[in-house]
């Protein structure tokens, strides 16, 4: 690894990096946050419960627990920054992004696109089939489709313009992969992990991404997270460079 690059820089926009630099906890008097940041509850609306059941059926325990922890960590990190569900963001929408964001790693959602897009499409259909057809569909689709597009989530313009559920969900997903307990209230990560163990966590997740790319190269295009993770793990496989893409075009640059 290039020793001149600190990890924070390398992960410049990786989901969750924003949470690591989130604002400090609000001043005393805002103790209402401890409720949101300390509990292990999930939204209990009909569609949220159905999505919760779905990942229990469709996802292996490591993946289901990653999806659920992402919501808990996202809510807790948001609370640390003074953002409350219901007041500052829609907890149901944030939950749907988190809990469905890796559905593309399951056979149920696989249509030959990279897993972020398959998951986004699956989630959009899931909402529409249940009568949600407004902007919430776009929010969930973007939140899932863009969840590995580094940089976007640290863009001040993106953060200001996009629905807050997207950024909060990204923070939660990122904390569960590259964050660590320091991003959360003391002891909270231990409580979450006691209820939702990692079962391999990031390691198992990588295995699923690589397995999909091996089985279907369309799911791992170059210069995307799935493509680069596959290339790192299997450098012997064909890999396209900038020049090889352009040489096929006939523009003779």
């Amino acid at each position: 690894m290039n020793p001149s690059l600190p990890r924070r820089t390398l992960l410049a926009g990786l989901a969750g990096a924003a949470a690591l630099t989130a604002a400090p906890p609000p001043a005393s008097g805002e103790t209402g946050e401890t409720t949101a940041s300390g509990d292990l509850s999930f939204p209990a609306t009909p569609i949220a419960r159905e999505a919760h059941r779905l990942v229990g059926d469709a996802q292996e325990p490591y993946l289901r627990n990653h999806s659920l922890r992402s919501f808990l960590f996202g809510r807790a990190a948001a609370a640390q920054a003074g953002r409350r569900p219901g007041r500052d963001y829609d907890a149901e929408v944030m939950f749907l992004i988190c809990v469905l964001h890796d559905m593309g790693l399951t056979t149920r959602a696989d249509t030959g696109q990279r897993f972020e897009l398959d998951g986004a499409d699956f989630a959009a259909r899931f909402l529409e089939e249940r009568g949600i057809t407004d902007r919430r569909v776009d929010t969930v689709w973007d939140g899932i489709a863009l969840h590995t597009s580094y940089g976007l989530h640290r863009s001040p313009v993106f953060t200001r313009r996009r629905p807050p559920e997207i950024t909060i969900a990204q923070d939660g997903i990122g904390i569960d992969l590259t964050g660590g307990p320091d991003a959360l209230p003391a002891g909270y990560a231990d409580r979450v992990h006691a209820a939702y163990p990692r079962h391999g966590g990031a390691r198992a997740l990588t295995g699923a991404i690589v397995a999909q790319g091996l089985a279907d190269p369309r799911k791992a295009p170059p210069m995307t997270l799935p493509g680069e993770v596959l290339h790192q793990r299997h450098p012997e496989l064909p890999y396209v460079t900038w020049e090889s893409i352009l040489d096929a075009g006939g523009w003779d640059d």
Partner: protein
Amino acid sequence: MNDTFGDLPFPRTELALAAMRFARDIEDRAIFNHSMRTYLYARFLGEQEGLRPGHDYDDELLFLGCVLHDAGLSDHGNGDQTFELDGADLATRFLIEHGLAPEKAEIVWDAIALHLYSAIAGRKRPEIALVTAGAGFDLGPSGPHTLPAGYADRVHAVFPRLHAAAVLKDAIVGQALGKPHKAPPFTMPGELLRQRTQETWPTWEQLMTLDPTWHDYDGYQPAATS
């Protein structure tokens, strides 16, 4: 160069011309020419899909996204984000200062910020999707052969390639060599930098095991088949 460009079909609103001059002033000529061709090919690809300018999309907005999509590769646009985000921010600041409604500027922001993510941009409205499609078309792999006979020659007579693909890559890598945080792993700038330097990027495993970590790899023995 005058601003008429023969009979090539550019929108010629005041804002379109201002944005064109802005891009021409700050960008390397090869990148500017690529940006102008991007609009022409975006429009062509839209026509192939039955999309008519002014009817199925806002022609001025499509042009603004195309002509400014690589503004982040100029020295003026070289900030501390990846170039497509720096370019999106610079472009929307310019456009709003010149009177474009913020909700329209947001469409241009998306068009530029998403232009390296073709699979995602392709699912958005034409003013966004066609920017990525046009830029990609100008670099390959479809090549000139799918255009109407002689069209690429007409375009290149006004906007010579000047080794566009090579200049673009050098600009991306040059910015990244100066500011490595503009080229994070798993992105196009990051991969182009790695291909140039042949440095070993941190692997996923390394990123996941640096402190702070959840210790998913502690004591892990890879299965022989993975």
